[in-house]
């Protein structure tokens, strides 16, 4: 007999027998609200709450009356039945669109509960989708990211992940590891048949796996930039116009601006979306400049302090000492901006610099473009839409460490390492998973998803 196993993932205890109900649209008052029901008893529940609904007319909307357990009318609503396995969860499902009144929503959910449903926990619908093989774990994680996406890139990466792009990368890595393991095991178990262990070929596969892991790990910082934002720090000598520029870019009077040097005491932050990416702009104090005889040294230090930023916006006033202009930051892309350009007089635009005058507005558009290009380069340059998240990074690093320690001089010991790496990757995709891991992942979901 063939077994329909859900690739090792829990189908026990994802609720199993229960049929669940929850509101899937956000809390608070709205025009409409969406209520979802999923599970084996959906049909019976529908019969109780929406007697007129024909569950066999699947995937089609109909206008129906909702009734409470006492037979009281709750609302006129639109209902769409889905039959397993062609539904989000892979189970029988029902989606009901009611008017957005808090009372109607509550009454509808209570009607389903009275008919035997249980209120869903966070992420429980998605968890069932995973258990029923509709999504793998990596895809499911992205569902949450898509819901909370605030920028175009966040949505794009999440969408690609739901579509299975990252899952495919993991599958390819797994395939390489399985081939490597098969090669070792074959040589061990079939030694009698004259199959030698080809260390060179095993080494080649190990390198290939490590390269695959490396390529994925390389997207980690990009993943962080997309998910958490690209951090750009404005540095420059006191009174070079950092805060004015900051406000201009952010579009509001966020930083305290004054003509006196050293006004910006603490780092001020603001978020904006540039080129579809979340950008966290930071304005720094003119660090230590008053006590430092040489301004350039002060800026150098400020740039050092900005070491954890993804990019630096270096400001140098047109009226500043020209021979003191600092070099670009060493490790980060640097956008060099000549500020107060209205004071420059006859000076030519220096090559490699953007010029701006916040007072006249000259060059601000060009600066936005330059910023946009820099951010795009920061995020998109690595190509593709794949960007691994923190959990993936940790798993991949475990796999890489296992592989690097693999001892092929004794193939049976090498096999242990490869099995370890494979296990780490399988855990990523949820093929072997501990329930704690699932709990952790799904607890970050909202209820109703």
């Amino acid at each position, binding site marked *: *007999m*063939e*077994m*329909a*196993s*859900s690739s*090792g*993932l*829990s*189908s*026990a*205890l*994802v609720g*199993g*027998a229960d049929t669940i109900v929850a509101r899937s649209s956000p809390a608070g008052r709205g025009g409409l609200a969406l209520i979802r029901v999923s599970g084996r008893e959906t049909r019976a529940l529908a019969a109780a709450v929406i007697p007129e609904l024909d569950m066999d007319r699947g995937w089609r909307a109909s206008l129906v009356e909702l009734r409470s357990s006492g037979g009281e009318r709750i609302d006129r609503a639109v209902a769409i039945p889905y039959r397993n396995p062609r539904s989000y969860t892979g189970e029988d499902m029902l989606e009901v669109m009611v008017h957005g009144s808090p009372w109607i929503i509550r009454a509808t959910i209570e009607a389903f509960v009275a008919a035997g449903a249980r209120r869903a926990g966070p992420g429980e619908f998605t968890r069932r989708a995973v*258990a029923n093989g509709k999504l793998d774990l990596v895809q499911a994680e992205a569902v949450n990211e898509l819901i909370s996406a605030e920028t175009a890139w966040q949505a794009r990466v999440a969408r690609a992940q739901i579509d299975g792009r990252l899952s495919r990368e993991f599958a390819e890595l797994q395939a390489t590891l399985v081939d490597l393991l098969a090669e070792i*095991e074959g040589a*061990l*178990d*079939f*030694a*009698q*048949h*004259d199959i030698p262990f080809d260390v060179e070929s095993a080494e080649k596969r190990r390198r290939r796996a490590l390269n695959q892991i490396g390529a994925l790990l390389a997207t980690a910082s990009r993943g962080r930039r997309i998910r958490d934002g690209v951090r750009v720090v404005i540095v420059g000598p006191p009174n070079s116009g950092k805060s004015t520029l900051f406000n201009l870019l952010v579009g509001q009077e966020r930083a305290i601006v004054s003509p006196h040097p050293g006004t910006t005491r603490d780092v001020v932050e603001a978020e904006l979306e540039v080129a579809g990416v979340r950008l966290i702009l930071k304005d720094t104090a003119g660090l230590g400049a008053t006590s430092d005889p040489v301004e350039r040294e002060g800026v150098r230090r400020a740039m050092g302090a900005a070491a954890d930023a993804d990019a630096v916006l270096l400001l140098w006033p047109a009226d500043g000492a020209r021979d003191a202009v600092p070099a670009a930051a060493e490790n980060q892309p640097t956008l060099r901006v000549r500020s107060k350009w209205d004071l420059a007089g006859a000076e030519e635009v220096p090559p490699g610099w953007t010029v701006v005058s916040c007072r006249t507005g000259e060059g601000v558009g060009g600066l936005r473009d330059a910023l946009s290009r820099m951010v795009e380069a920061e995020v998109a340059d690595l190509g593709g839409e794949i960007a691994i998240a923190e959990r993936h990074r940790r798993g991949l690093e475990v796999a890489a460490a296992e592989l690097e320690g693999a*001892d092929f*001089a*004794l*193939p*049976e*010991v090498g*096999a*242990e*390492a490869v099995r*370890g790496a494979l296990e780490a990757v399988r855990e990523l995709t949820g093929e072997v*998973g*501990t*329930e*704690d891991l699932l709990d952790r992942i799904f607890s970050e979901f909202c209820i109703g998803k």
Partner: protein
Amino acid sequence: MTVGGDFDLVVVGAGHAGCEAAGAAARMGARVAVVTLHKRTIAQMPCNPAMGGIGKGHLLAEVDALGGFQGWAADRAGIQFKTLNVSRGPAVWGPRAQCDKARYSEIMRRVLSGLPRLTIVEGEVIGLLSDDGAVVGVRLADGRRFRARSTILTTGTFLGGVLHSGDERRPGGRFGERPSIGLGAELVGLGLVLRRFKTGTPPRLKRSSLDFDRLEVQHGDREPRPFSWRSSSVRNRISCWLTRTPERVQTIIEENIHRSPLFSGAIEGVGPRYCPSIEDKVVRFPHHREHTVFLEPEGLATESVYVNGLSTSLPHDVQEAVVHAVPGLEAAEFLRHGYAVEYDMVAPGQVGMDLGCRDVPGLALAGQVLGTSGYEEAAALGFLAGANAVLRGRGEDLFHPAREDSYLGVLVDDLVNRDHVEPYRMFTSRAEHRLLLGVDSARERLMGQGVRLGLVRPAAFHVEQNRWNARSRAKAMLEGMNLNPDRATREAVVQACGIEFTSPATWAQLLRRQDVDLDRAGRNIPELSSLNDEDRRIVVGSLRYEGYLDRHRREIERVRRLRRVKLPGDLDPGAIPGLSREVVEQLERHRPVTLADAERLPGMTPAATAILAGRLARGGADS
């Protein structure tokens, strides 16, 4: 009443499974009848003339440690001994021996005939005696009946057997033997599900017709080692030979492939992937230009040579063309052509971990009839079924080998709890704790159990105990001994194992390095001189495993805790709230004995395991 007699146990079949089952049970004190088609084919080796190997050698070592016969008989019938994988660590050493087939069979026949409580009966079992749904004995074709509390079926490839050779097909259990027809229907009548498998065997050639000048000689080990703790030494008596198929073989087979029963559709049974026929190999690996062929004599007194690597069921003329194309075999005379056998097996999910049928009390199964392939797998299952028949009769706890403790456990667990689509053969890669389950540790792991079963003499156990204690002392010494990188010590280390070192380290740390020459180290480290050659190599080799052993020990510890939790026989999984339907189905289907067995079922999650555990802690399922 019964014409044959009353016994504690009837074993049907005296192949490798039947011999171990009957032998173990009789030596444990049971009155046993072995019914088999022919006395002359007791413990016959119908396929290759070798015992052991990688994985199979592990099983053989374990059955030996438990007190079984196979290793001991192979030591006596062995004519060339060779341990495979010796350049690797001890976990994957695979002891193997070419045997004189006739002598092997003769030894087994003698030892069984000598057992006081064992009766060998020649005859064909055609039916089972049943009483209220339980099997209580067997019915023979000649009308005799034998009653027994337990019956073990070990009928190999005989159930509904059909032999294929090219376009020819005729009923048969093995070459020259009739199949067993009625018995299969009887099993179906008891509600058992049968499936169809197949296996094949290569041609046998006449030794004097081979051109030895064109063959490569293969010697046995310089210092051959016996399988069994009962044997003190063994001797190599013959050489084997090796040759390779030329490219032309590919063409010959391709041109005739439509005549192969495997590809024409005449054979429906599923054969083992890992023991493919030459036609399979040519079709599946067309890029392999050549295939190795081993020529293995089937005995000292016989001319028959087994052609390992050319298993085939092609028509005779094609077999001849193929063989004659191979260097050294141009003028080879055929003593027998290769053939395939297709047979019924009992789907093993229907037996429990003790090999008793779950739904037919009194009936157990072992060997090829349960879907395995190979002498060692058959013997291991036979041993287990025989021992458990006696334990059950006495009302004692049954012997349930666990997969973290032995290959025997892996074998039974895989068979019973997994679905199989081809004959099951043991590989070391099937054991997740392979590093701990080497042949080197078989006695340490299992001999105590052999003593408890009454099949191993305590004195022999103590001899072995001293050996493994000496090994752990030697290991502790290597762990504790610091070496300083002064000139003299460095030179000594280079001498001993071929590596340079520059900062102080213990012997053990140095020996864990990947560049150590294990073979040399095993021989040359002065601190190990009190051990014998094999033990030295075991100590040095297992040091390299150390980093991974902790991981395995932790996991095993965890599994053992679960294994101590027994599931009640009357557990009703459907009545336990919180389990999904899939998990309930799995539990109902496989009826795991312990929580550890339950945990391995497909779809079973840690949470479901936790629910089960909680349920058991609260005193079993509601009833």
